[in-house]
């Protein structure tokens, strides 16, 4: 095999709850610090201990870090999944196994190289406590990988120092375990492997962060003071991070006061209720949840829509329907959020593609929610939310002022003869609102029942319709204020590829490969609903467009058909919804059958569905 520098993929198969996460993170972070583009995808079970878990690392000097699907090195540490894991190794690739036990003969492939290291045996000899033996086996594995992949030892030493420097015992155990693995593999196998790492400078001032942490920072920077939530995978870490940042940035140390209030609600019905109550009172408030939470919130989301109360809902999407697969990723809540609640409703949706956008669009969510006095959904997913991404440094402009929308002060109210809640000014579709406690003149009765433009109860068709029609205009008006699509054009392209959110990296890679193969396609990533004119123009400008998304029913495609004038024949779905993040190979394999110029790629994982 020819030597390949900074271009390979490895997969680590483990049993969850055995402490593999910290070793995986260590390797990933070390590669990032070496300045090499890298991604780490945690494919984990909905379980605390004992079920299979995988971690995939892809290294690519050109910055393609979506999932690889075939692996140069498999670290097979879980007997339960051994048969499947062996199959995923690229022909000519390597498999690292624990040679404390003999390798099962029928699992041997002729075209794979085996590296056996007696990890359990070494750890049993060198560590005494049973828990430590299990944990250190992962670190010893990391030691092996450092040698096999030529990971910078100084960088690893520095990371270990930062992580465990203050805990002497742990620090020493980690160093010892790393040495055990490294020494053994160096003495018994040629190191490094033909594919390995070399320090480069591709990461600049980029950071390594997960989307949930970035969302939480966005909420802090947006000035959110009230957060209400109910614990749910995969959004829980967003609220954990919000709490952590608030404790750091929002505590008045001298007074001992907390300039925020986080409410762990009794359920999601209550969580959204608390957000709506706080927003009604003028606070920037949000909830973080996942699909099952959105299902429960539907009732009050309709209330907030109809009564025109701002609310920010962060939906870290996971696999549905029902409980589905809580620790697997999907983009299955698009339609549910677009039209959440009974009756005629339409909401504003934002779709970040990576953690940096999570930060920016979290801030934007609050501005839009207050400007348009309506719920705004920030739709991320488990892949973006819970995996660490190499992402551009987060930027903040200190001249930012929150857009609170039109809120009348006591003075404003003095200047007008009478206040009516739902009467817009100057042709806008949004009516000014008032906050409780400010002035008797601004008081009104907030209700989810039929109301007229004065805010009074009504059952009169014309009065009801007048309000409903304005709400529709308001939603359309928002199209001019939401982030527009990202469009990239290629010379000679007749076909377009449309995608959304976390599909970005994989689809971009596919589009580059397609261009190399002589099939240029234009690219559009949608960042918000309602759709602005450029979305419609993109579809109109192409013979047809593929719509790549991670759900069974082509929900983005459906939304495009419903909400633009695009004919449905022009939109062809490419759907990947098994629960693991998207790969460029999924996209290419879906296109290949109908385009002779496109080559199929062999993979073990179930291909994309093309409709």
């Amino acid at each position, binding site marked *: 095999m020819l030597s390949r520098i900074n271009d390979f993929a490895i997969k680590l198969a483990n049993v969850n709850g055995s402490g593999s996460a910290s070793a995986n993170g260590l390797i990933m972070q070390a590669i990032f610090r070496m300045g090499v583009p890298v991604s780490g995808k945690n494919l984990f079970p909905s379980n605390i201990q004992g079920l299979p878990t995988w971690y995939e690392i892809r290294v690519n000097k050109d910055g393609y870090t979506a999932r690889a699907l075939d692996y140069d090195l498999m670290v097979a540490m879980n007997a339960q999944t051994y048969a499947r894991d062996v199959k995923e190794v690229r022909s000519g690739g390597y498999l690292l196994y624990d040679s404390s036990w003999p390798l099962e003969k029928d699992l041997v492939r002729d075209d794979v190289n085996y590296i056996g290291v007696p990890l359990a045996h070494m750890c049993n000899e060198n560590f005494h406590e049973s828990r430590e033996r299990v944990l250190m086996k992962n670190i010893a594995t990391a030691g092996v990988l450092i040698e096999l992949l030529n990971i910078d030892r100084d960088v690893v030493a520095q990371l270990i120092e930062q992580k465990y420097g203050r805990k002497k015992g742990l620090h020493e155990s980690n160093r010892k375990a790393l040495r055990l693995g490294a020494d053994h593999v160096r003495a018994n196998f040629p190191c490094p492997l033909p594919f390995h790492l070399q320090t480069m400078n591709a990461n600049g001032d980029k950071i390594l962060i997960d989307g949930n942490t970035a969302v939480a920072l966005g909420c802090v920077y947006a000035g959110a003071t009230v957060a209400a939530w109910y614990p749910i995978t995969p959004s829980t870490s967003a609220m954990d991070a919000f709490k952590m940042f608030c404790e750091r*940035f929002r505590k008045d140390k001298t*007074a001992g006061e*907390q300039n925020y209030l986080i409410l762990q609600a009794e359920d999601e019905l*209550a969580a959204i209720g*608390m957000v709506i109550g706080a927003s009604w009172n003028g606070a920037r408030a949000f909830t973080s949840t996942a699909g099952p939470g959105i299902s429960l919130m539907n009732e009050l989301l309709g209330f907030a829509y109809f009564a025109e109360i701002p609310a920010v809902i962060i939906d870290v999407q996971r696999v549905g329907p029902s409980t589905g697969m809580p620790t697997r990723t999907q983009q299955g809540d698009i339609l549910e959020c677009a039209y959440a609640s009974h009756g005629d409703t339409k909401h504003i949706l934002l779709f970040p593609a990576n953690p940096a956008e999570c930060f920016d669009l979290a801030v934007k969510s609050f501005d839009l929610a207050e400007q348009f006095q309506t719920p705004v959904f920030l739709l991320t997913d488990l892949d973006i939310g819970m995996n660490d991404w190499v992402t551009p440094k987060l930027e903040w*402009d200190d001249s930012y002022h*929150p857009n609170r929308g039109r809120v009348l002060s006591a003075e404003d109210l003095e200047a007008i003869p009478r206040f009516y809640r739902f009467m817009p000014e100057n042709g806008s579709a949004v009516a000014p609102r008032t906050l409780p*406690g400010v002035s008797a003149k601004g008081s009104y009765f907030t209700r*989810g029942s039929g109301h007229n433009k004065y805010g009074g109860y009504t059952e009169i068709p014309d009065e009801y319709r007048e309000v409903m029609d304005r709400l529709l205009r308001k939603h359309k008006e928002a199209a001019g204020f939401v982030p527009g699509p990202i469009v990239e054009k290629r010379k000679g392209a007749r076909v377009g590829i449309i995608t959304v959110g976390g599909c970005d990296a994989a689809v971009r890679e596919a589009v580059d490969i397609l261009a190399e193969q002589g099939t240029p396609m234009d690219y559009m990533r949608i960042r918000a609903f309602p759709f602005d004119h450029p979305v419609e123009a993109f579809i109109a400008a192409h013979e047809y467009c593929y719509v790549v998304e991670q759900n069974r029913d082509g929900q983005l495609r459906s939304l495009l058909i419903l909400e633009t004038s695009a004919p449905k024949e022009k939109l062809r779905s490419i759907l990947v919804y098994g629960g693991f993040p998207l790969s460029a190979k999924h996209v290419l394999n879906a296109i290949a059958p109908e385009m002779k110029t496109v080559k199929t790629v062999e993979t073990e994982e179930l291909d994309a569905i093309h409709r």
Partner: protein
Amino acid sequence: MPSIVKPPVAHPSLTRNELGLTIRDYEGAMSTLCAGCGHDSITAAIVRALWEMSTPPHRVAKLSGIGCSSKTPAYFVSAAHGFNSAHGRMPPIATGANAANRELTYVGVSGDGDSLSIGLGHLCHAMRRNVNMLYIIENNGVYGLTKGQFSASSDVGSKSKKGEANVMSPIDPVLLGLSLGATFVARSFSGDKGQLVPILMAGLAHRGFAMVDVISPCVTFNDHEGSTKSYLYTRQHLLHATETDFVPDAREIVAEIAPTGGTNITMHDGSVLRFTRLPEDYDVTDRQKAFSYLKQHPHEVVTGIFFADESVPEMHETNHTPATALVDLPYAKLCPGAAQLQQLQNEFR
């Protein structure tokens, strides 16, 4: 009474409170409930209590769920913002509103369907959080707006208008509150304004969640023979367990308070809740005794303030928020700024 149209100008002889406002300044829109509905009497008592307390009308936030009871916030304090939310969801809405602005006076109005069925969980959790608010359950033992179904507070054997007897045991919000750790638990009767007004005033002064269950007969669907929530039945079975005076300004009665002070509770705002009658061996600060007393009187409609504890921190105190409203914090105090973000990101490398 808010159920009749009144002239727009207040009569000059009307008494004025500390703010110089008459009781008319605390009234709301005309009621659309049935004539004689107990809820209208409660509305009048709320109006009276807020007026007596001299609460600035625009500093009141009135919230409700869905049902006959939940329509009533429209009928009091027009100068206040109202929030007629969804069925059973008023407690979370009030919790969030209170979280954002602790400085307003929160009055929640609910019913037995709203609080004891669809919103039972929310009620329990609002009690747990000790949200600082007055929470009134207008309890008529029946679903009025949907025309007469039994509610979760219907007594066993109580008959519906069609003659059907209820077979399931009721949920008693008072016993529930006592067992869950609610910090102010009371019951009254809509037809007993003399008792209800001081109870509501004490509830308003209470620091924390003040739950007042008010038996409020439904004249249309639950005021017939065989009902245990009718006017007649309630009057015949009424038992004043405790009797109280509420004294908004403590200075007036300092001299009167006995040195032992066992039957007076000083409220958080300095006002005093004075128990003029307590059963023997009854202690309003002893949850267990209150519980036992109620259990010993299963056939009476026992009313009064059963339990009050001013020492439990309310939601903001447990969360260490500033003494002023979170909504009043300037944005500059909330955003850490670009320099902090730069520095923070060193940890993500």
